[in-house]
């Protein structure tokens, strides 16, 4: 059976993605900072879907540990999905560098660090799929979350460059741009129900897109058009908006 590695397995999005792939008969490798916390999920996947599962300690911001983490995996995954992310507090990050650095390092530097390692392995094998969960917040900086948004913008650009390079080696890279999703991360935000997806919807879209070797998906799909409009607003107007 093919294997998928989920980096940042503690989040609601990760649970949904793990269940979607396990339901499609993938063995699942879960990686999270706190391994004990994902033990219930591991059991859950095994019992519900009768697939092989394993858990590993992984800290996105502990860059030096990334090569050893990946090399120690007993089975190299066919698909690697980088789900981890940290919304953080924009307001705090504006004046507190620790918070700002955490936002940047989790969402961008950490993602680059681990995916560099995975990409080398996939390139040498001439096979594999890398999925990066970025965000529509990375498409245009807004005052309410530009620290998070700029890190995701960097990640989106990284994925597109990686895709370009690895295409010639037979490796596929999928960029995922979720809009609003009901998760614990967004629980304290007032989200418009019509525009907000459930983690299971996002997981389904990701599974289908990975299967179909899509390059970039927006989920829900209409976010492509919402972002098109947002990106087309001239800067002299955009800067006056309260977004």
């Amino acid at each position, binding site marked *: 059976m093919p294997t998928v590695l989920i980096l940042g397995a*503690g989040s*609601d999005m990760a*649970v949904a993605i793990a269940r979607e792939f396990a339901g499609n008969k993938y063995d699942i490798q879960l990686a999270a900072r706190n391994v004990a*916390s994902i033990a*219930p*999920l591991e*059991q*859950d996947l095994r*019992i*519900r879907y009768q697939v092989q599962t394993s858990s590993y300690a992984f800290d996105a911001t502990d860059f030096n540990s990334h090569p050893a983490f990946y090399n120690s995996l007993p089975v190299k995954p066919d698909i690697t999905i980088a789900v981890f992310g940290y919304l953080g507090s924009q307001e705090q990050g504006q004046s507190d560098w620790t918070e700002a650095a955490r936002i940047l390092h989790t969402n961008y530097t950490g993602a680059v660090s681990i995916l560099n390692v995975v990409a080398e392995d996939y390139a040498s094998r001439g096979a594999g799929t890398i999925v990066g969960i970025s965000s529509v917040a990375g498409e245009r900086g807004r005052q309410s979350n530009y620290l998070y948004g700029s890190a995701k913008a960097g990640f989106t650009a990284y994925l597109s460059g990686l895709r370009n390079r690895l295409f010639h080696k037979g490796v596929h890279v999928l960029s995922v741009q979720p809009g609003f999703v009901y998760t*614990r991360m967004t*629980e*304290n*935000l*007032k989200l418009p129900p019509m525009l907000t997806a459930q983690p299971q919807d996002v997981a389904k879209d990701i599974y289908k897109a990975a299967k179909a070797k899509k390059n970039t998906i927006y989920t829900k799909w209409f976010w492509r058009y919402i972002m098109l409009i947002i990106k087309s607003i001239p800067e002299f107007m955009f800067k006056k908006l309260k977004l």
Partner: protein
Amino acid sequence: MEKRLANWGNYPAISCDETSFSQEDQIQDFISSHSSVIARGNGRCYGDASLANHSVSTLKYDKVLAFDIENGIFECQSGITLDQILDIIVPQGWFLPVTPGTKFITIGGAVASDVHGKNHHVDGSFSGHIIDMDVITGNQESITCSAGIEADLFWATCGGMGLTGIITRVKFGLKKIDTAYIRQKQIKAKNLEDLIRLFEEYKDYTYSMAWIDCLQKGDSFGRGILIVGEHATPQELSEQQRKAPLQLAQKRKLSMPFNLPSFTLNTLTVKAFNWLYYLKNTKREINNVIPYEPFFYPLDAILHWNRGYGKAGFVQYQFVLPLEKKDGLVAILKKISDAGLGSFLAVLKVFGKQDSLISFPMEGYTLALDFPVRKGLFEFLDQLDEIVLQYGGRLYLSKDARMKQEVFWQSYPNAQKFADIIKTYNGKKLFRSIQSDRLLLTQ
């Protein structure tokens, strides 16, 4: 975040904040930073039992922890719903030991309401099948309890509406099945006498309940249809069904897309519906083998069926009367039929013996019916409460949205003992709901 929240009856609706958790430390953090909270599962209790200014949703705390396929023992976190459990256990030849009329409830909710099913007279309520469970109590300690250990906490948690704490893990025994089908028998009863006689005649069936038409008067007063069933054996299946006896075909679900205007429900439409429902069974007795879903969960096939009662919502009134108080049943049905306030599908069932602290069932007759919320309804229900009290009965807290506190205290014989145990485990009133405040359990 502030949002509008209501349970299945859409009454009452309140503005409150709801948070969720997927790890135990998250719930610990949340309760240590709040002065009051109530756990909420899938919101299928009808009234205000899981409504409060701060509610904590267990829905993301939904992991299966163990499933012993040899011995039929299931262990899970409290936020998993019964429909997910059925998808896991039925293909392996196991079934829920007890299930209510919807599978869209969480296991934590099943414990907190100590749910009963069509097999109560044989298998009792859900609490009788729990091996052990974990509850985070008011001092933020997670306590493992069962009928044998920490028994007072256990019995005050089963049917205790979340007032002892947050149920986080439940381990319970399953029922062995050979097929995913039910051998069903439906028998028409001319009137209440006939119906009660049929209950007695068919009491050896594992599953039984009756639909009853509350609007009939005279000779057909209380006419209805008794529905009994057994898990089917492979021999009883058709050749087609026998190929995969534990698999059911996926069925498409209908959905009520919006609230119906309140005038769609009146005595005339309810009468017409009940008349059709009774007459659709042209023979006195019908025997067939059907999948378990339509047998146990007929209304789950229509998502959001509660919207049929309109925006103002409805209350489901469910009471139980002791077995020897049959005339109380007649008195209540008469009152409903005289007032012309009957609902679609009123459900009658005979409970068996029940030994527990605060759970709803007791040996006797239980009747459940829906009333759309409208002017004068609550006064009318207060009158019904008086009859229930007079005949030594009580109301189901999971359906309740309006009972006066004295009705609760007079009708539940262990109310004081229950309140005392709540004080032990929830002394600071950390866990409280609009219902528990109304019933003066946490005031």
